[in-house]
């Protein structure tokens, strides 16, 4: 483990102990460290900022509610990413189901739907052409390939951690990332040659 990994582990462990004891300040520190990365990670699946934020906030709330049952030695880092991944996939599954059952909505039941909402004015980082193409190319990767690659490059999980989050072997993680690199290099050829 590198020294920065060690520092991260020690800090996490301290926060977890304090959160388990009901320390809201420590919980806020955990939130501050993980909220934005987890939202971006969820966004990769649900493709909407609001559902991504909603989802991650619910994860933190669930974490808080179940804090008494925590094993502080468990790797919360991978746990948070695993939760986010699972809930994102569930969200996608549920939405696919909803879109099918909307047609046969029961009469006599309250029917509530969100209306299309305006997109928030964005910070507008103007990406260079290669960067724009890269974002699109990553999005086009086969799903598990994309997940492994994103977890590695954007969220700095080790291959071992990725293996745990995705429930695959470390060797498979290695293969998926190699496949991603190959596909990206092919897709981005016009900008690289």
């Amino acid at each position, binding site marked *: 483990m590198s020294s920065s990994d060690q520092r991260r582990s020690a800090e996490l462990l301290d926060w977890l102990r304090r959160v388990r004891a009901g320390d809201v300040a420590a919980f806020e520190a955990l939130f501050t460290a993980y909220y934005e990365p987890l939202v971006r990670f969820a966004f990769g699946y649900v493709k909407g900022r609001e559902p991504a934020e909603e989802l991650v906030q619910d994860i933190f709330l669930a974490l808080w509610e179940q804090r008494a049952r925590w094993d502080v030695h468990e790797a919360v880092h991978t746990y948070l990413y695993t939760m986010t991944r699972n809930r994102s996939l569930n969200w996608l599954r549920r939405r696919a189901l909803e879109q099918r059952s909307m047609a046969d909505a029961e009469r006599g039941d309250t029917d*509530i739907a969100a209306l299309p909402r305006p997109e928030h004015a964005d910070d507008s980082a103007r990406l260079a052409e290669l960067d724009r193409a890269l974002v699109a190319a990553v999005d086009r990767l086969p799903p598990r390939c994309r997940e492994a690659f994103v977890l590695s490059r954007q969220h700095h999980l080790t291959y071992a951690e990725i293996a745990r989050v995705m429930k695959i072997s470390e060797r498979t993680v290695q293969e998926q990332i190699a496949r991603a690199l190959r596909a990206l290099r092919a897709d981005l050829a016009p900008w690289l040659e």
Partner: protein
Amino acid sequence: MEHDIDWLKLSDYVADRASPALRAEIEDWVAAAPERRQFVESLRTVWERAGVVREPIGPIDRSVAWQSVARRLQSTTGDGIPLRVRRTNWRTLGVAAALVLGAIGVVKLMRVARTDPAPTVAVQSMREVRTEPGQRASIQLVDGTRVVLGVDSRLQWPTDVTGARDVYLEGEAYFDVQHDATRPFRVHVGDVVAEDIGTAFAIRGYPGDARISVAIESGSVALAMSDRAPKTVLAAGDVAIRTTGTPGAIDVRHGADLTSYLAFREGRVVFDQAPLRDVLTELTRWYGLNVIPMDSALVRARVTWTFEADSTSAVLPTLARILDARYEQHGRTVHLFVRR
């Protein structure tokens, strides 16, 4: 250009996971043909950019998110669905109520102390929908009443579908009521009660606003101050304004232009000579933006403007043009300056 090299090895090399032996192997391979060096360099470019570039997903306001989470830390939560719909267990009827967080896991409503003799109190199980800034909802109640709930608003209605239809609103909503003479439909907003007499109408009363307004699209509505008589009967084309804090006064305009009261259903906002403060408050409710005028000349401005709430990127530039101002945005905070 195909390269006869194991991608697993290349990938490990570029990811700095290669053993010294593998590194030597790759470097020998690269040295053997000139175009290979450029190829590996391009892989490094992809690898490095992929570590830095993020898909733009709009502003993430972590402090707002934390406030939302912190508020819910001590209340019972349901499973996450796009709109916050939940069952609150207590409601004292006919009396202004304040929401107080009690012991962990319980949400209790408390009556605000009043000097008048208190009306009889009943409790009722309620359902609630809450919209976020920028979010609107379309609700069809079991009795067939259609509601459009505006941004940053909250609507509560009884779970008991056979009893009186008393609903409670904070914010803005449009009601198309399924008339039932045996079960009056009443909307409670602040200290105003609007009772349906077979109607479609829009009500607006955000907590903290100076006014509550009721605009009648069709049919008629009886307005009263809480449950006290006498009632003012409004007809189609009427707009009633209650200025909060003034004792008992409801100001009725007949034959009014209802456009600005109904526009929110289509995601449009209409201002006619509105004070800037009102415009900025709406921007917060529709976009979550906190717009601050930095010059006193701006503060006095009046704005006539209609905007479609989905043309986000145009909102700030358009406002700036209307005011002849310029703006600086940092995340959700925007400062407006007079253009010199």
